[in-house]
C-alpha cells in the first residue's frame, strides 16, 4: 500500500514533477503523461488544502491553582 503523503510532501512532489519539464530528461514521449499526472496531483493537493481542519483542545488543567 502506498505511503500517505503530507501536503508539504505532495507539494514537494509536484514541484519536482514540474521541474522535469525544465530538465534534461524532458521528452515529448512522456510529456503528456507527466503533465496529466501533475494536474491530478495539484487537484489532490487543492482538495486536501481546502478540507484540512485544525484540532483544538483546551487543556484540562486549572491554571489558577499552583
Amino acid at each position, binding site marked *: 500500500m502506498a505511503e500517505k503523503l503530507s*501536503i*508539504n510532501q505532495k*507539494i514537494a512532489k*509536484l*514541484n519536482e*514533477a*514540474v521541474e522535469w*519539464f*525544465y530538465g534534461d530528461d*524532458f521528452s*515529448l514521449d512522456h*510529456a503528456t503523461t507527466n*503533465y496529466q499526472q*501533475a*494536474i491530478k496531483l*495539484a487537484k489532490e*493537493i*487543492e482538495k486536501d*488544502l*481546502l*478540507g*484540512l*481542519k*485544525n*484540532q*483544538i*483542545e*483546551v*487543556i484540562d*488543567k486549572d*491554571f*489558577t491553582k*499552583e
Partner: protein
Amino acid sequence: MPESPAFTVSEFIDVCNDALDLAYRNIIIEGEVASFKVNQGKWVFFDLKDDQSSLGCFLPLFQLRVPLEDGMKVKVQGVPKLTKWGKFSFTVKSIIPVGDGSIKKAFDLLKAKLEKEGLFDPLKKRPLPDDLTKIGVISSTQAAGYADFIKILNERWGGLNVQVAHTGVQGFGATEQIIRALDYFNQQAEVQVIAIIRGGGSADDLAIFNDEKLVRAVAASRIPVITGIGHEVDQSLVDLAADIEASTPSNVAQLLTPDRQAEVRNLHATIMRAKNQLFSQINFISSSTLGTLDGAKRQLLSNITAELSRLEHTQKILEHLNPEQVLVQGYAIVTGAMREGGEVTITTADKLAKATINSIKERSNNG
C-alpha cells in the same frame, strides 16, 4: 456571671489576624505610593494613600515585580495584618500600576533594567519552526482576541494540533496563571511554539504584561514564544521579551500559518508554469525540426544545382567534341579506302564528295 478566660497578647493578635483574613481575604486597594523604601535589601515598605488616609504596606523584595516610586498610582492585592507589635499593616501579594502615567513610569523603569540584562537582545530571538504542526496557546477562551485568533487560524490553515491553556489575561492572578501555563508547555515539550494571546484593552487591562516575573518567564522559555497582545499601538515588555511580536491576535495566526487560498493560487501558478514550459518545449522541438527540414531542403537544392552545373559542363565538352562543330570551322572528314587508287568520301559542313586517291606518302610528325 463568670469571667471569660483572658487571651494572651499573642493569642489576641492571632485571633484578630484570623478575623481579618476571613473578612478581607485578597482584598484590592487602590492608592498612591509614598515613602517607598527597601530595608536590608530584603523588605519593601511603602504607604498607600489617598487625599485623606494612609495605609502602611509591606512585602518581601522578591515579590516586588513592578518598579515602584513615590507618586505612582497602584492597585495592591493582599491581606490586612496586625503585627506582633500591635501595628496595623497591609501585607501585599501583588501590585499593578494604574493610570497611564504610572504604567508608563513602571514600564520605562523595568524596561531599562531588563534591557541592561539583555532580555530583549534581538540576537536571542528564535525563528518559527519550518514545519509547524503543534501550537500552544495561552489565553482566555472567553476573550474576543482568542476568538479572532482561532477564526483566522481556521480560515488560513488546517491540520494543526492546537493546545489551549485557559488563563486569565487581566487583573490580579493572571500573571501567575500565564507563568504556570508557560511552565506547563515547557515541561510537556509537545508544542513547537507558544502563542500568548490577548485582545485590545485599556492600559490598565494590559498592565499585567509588564510584570517582571512574567517577562522573565517569557525570555527563559525553551519553546519559542510569539505574542499578540492588544492592538498595533500597544507594546508590552512581554512583547519585547518574546521571540516574535505580532501586532494583534489575528496577526499571530497570520504569522504562524500560510494562507491556504494563497497556496491554492500557487498550485495553479505551478501547473501554469508546467504548461508554459511544455508549450515552450513543443515550440522549441517543432522549430528545431523545421530547421532541420529546412537545412535538408537547402542541401538538396544545393546538390541539384551542383549536379546541373556539372551536367552543363559535360554538355559543353561534348558539344566541343562534336565532329559537326569541326566541320563548321571549315574542316572535312575523309572516309573510305586510304590507298592509291582507293575511293574516299569527303564530308564537309554542307557537302559530300566522292574522290579517288592519286598518291599516298608518309607524313612527318612535325607536319
